[in-house]
């Protein structure tokens, strides 16, 4: 396990995220829960890294730890060469949650402007950035709508625009399409890839869909529960330019099989694991 984790040490760019022996334990009345144990991982600039595993494997916890929404209890973690807290204060990342979490009393453009208001951008700058990011996620024309007037997929696109609006180089996405139907999900997946190609951001993406992870990622981190840990890290051999029907190719299926194998090795398919 630690062999596969340390295999990521081969670097060809500056590390955006570096985790060494990272651990996180939640104390509960029922005994401690080990959410993360001995995680070693380096993510480089421009990577699209997916975290996959069953519920309780710590994939969301790891993302929240990068975002300084949780504090690790052991090991070290750096984001852009800083501590997660410094990185958060430097607004180093945009975070997309499972639910769109748009504020219902704000129009779509005002929702996207929310981080810009908080970060103190001028009104002109805000308008310009809102316009640009709304174009980027294909939401132009919906500026004055309220969230309830948009479909679930469009709301999630707005929340992605909100995370992109202040132009952080790192995008953390926690099962952003988990609540959407498969057709919308396919569509947003291919849009996300285009967006990634255009913006050259580093993306960390949590999912529990194998096809989604394989389709999107340059690297797939397979995790398993009890304790939450990394069991395999798979480098994708797929080209960066990926049409949706790449999912029918033998190469794609081979990577998917390896992900499945990694999940099985982590006992993720056993009774009570999922």
């Amino acid at each position: 396990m630690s062999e596969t984790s340390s295999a990521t040490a081969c670097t060809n760019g500056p590390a955006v995220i570096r985790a060494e022996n990272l651990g996180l334990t939640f104390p509960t009345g029922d005994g401690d829960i080990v959410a993360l144990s001995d995680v070693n991982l380096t993510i480089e600039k421009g990577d699209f890294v997916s975290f996959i595993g069953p519920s309780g494997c710590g994939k969301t916890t790891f993302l929240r730890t990068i975002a300084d929404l949780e504090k690790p209890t052991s090991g070290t973690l750096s984001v852009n060469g800083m501590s997660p807290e410094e990185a958060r204060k430097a607004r180093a990342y945009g975070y997309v949650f499972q639910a769109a979490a748009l504020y219902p009393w704000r129009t779509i453009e005002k929702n996207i402007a929310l981080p810009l208001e908080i970060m103190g951008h001028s009104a002109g700058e805000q308008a310009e950035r809102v316009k640009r990011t709304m174009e980027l996620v294909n939401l132009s024309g919906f500026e004055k709508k309220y969230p309830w007037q948009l479909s679930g997929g469009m709301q999630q696109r707005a929340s992605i625009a909100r995370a992109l609006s202040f132009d952080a180089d790192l995008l953390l996405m926690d099962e952003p399409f988990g609540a959407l139907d498969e057709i919308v999900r396919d569509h947003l997946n291919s849009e996300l890839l285009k967006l990634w190609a255009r913006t050259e951001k580093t993306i960390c993406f949590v999912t529990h869909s194998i096809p989604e992870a394989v389709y999107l990622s340059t690297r797939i981190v397979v995790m398993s529960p009890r304790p939450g840990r990394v069991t395999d890290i798979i480098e994708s051999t797929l080209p960066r330019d990926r049409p949706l029907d790449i999912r029918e190719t033998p190469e794609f299926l081979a990577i998917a099989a390896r992900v499945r194998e990694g999940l099985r090795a982590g006992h993720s398919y056993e009774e009570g694991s999922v």
Partner: protein
Amino acid sequence: MANRVIPVLTILLAILAFWYAAAIWMNAPWQDRLNARADLVDVPFAEFAAQTWAQDKPVLPAPHQVVSEIWNATVALEITSRRSLAYHAWITLSATLLGFAFGTVLGVALAVAIIHNDASDRSLMPWIIASQTIPILAIAPMVVVGLGSVGLTGLVPKALISMYLSFFPVVVGMVKGLRSPEAIQLDLLRTYDANGWQVFWKLRWPAAMPFLFASMKVGIAISLIGAVVAELSNASGGGLGVRLLTGSYNGQTVQIWAALFIAAGLAAVLVAIVGAAEKWVNGRMGARA
């Protein structure tokens, strides 16, 4: 339209019919005595009913008596007259509004303190709840007379009683409202490194608006009750409470009922105004029409 008007009218007519019937029944003993004194025997029922609806000091006045008393005491009188119900209603209304404003501000301030500070949550909340277990009838005279003895009379002591009642629903509602944002909405602001001030104004305050208006609807109605109760302790100050009091001293049931109806109408109008403000704010906040 018709299917909304008909049920409303039906209920209204049923209430009126019940009221007139109850007036006959409740005023009958006194009417019997009056008729006996006047040597009237075997009065036909229709005539007897009309008599019970036209007594000078009935146990239960008939609706039209109350309406005509309201008319005589408002439209037919100079507004500055000490007998004008409009004059008394204004006295009560001004105390109500001032007390409601005090109560809302106090309630919001306490709620803000409570959600931002665990210690104030634990130390304030028991006192706030205890304050509402004291009967207002016991505390109002003490406050009004006590403040009167230090020279503070008129509007402010009454407004304080209104405040005492109306701050409570605002505190309870606003604590819930300011705590209503979901965890991810708060996490989101944390990822932006928003400060406490921004979290309050951009998330907690707007999220609490529905709770504020629900609380204010309760608050303004009990503000009115507070003002009326406070007036009972200071008969020289005027107000609807004083009309109730003098009415009961003199057995003027029609006057009591007229004052009660004015108070109820006032409460309805005030609640409707808060409701209209709520609608306006909801519209501005993009709520589904």
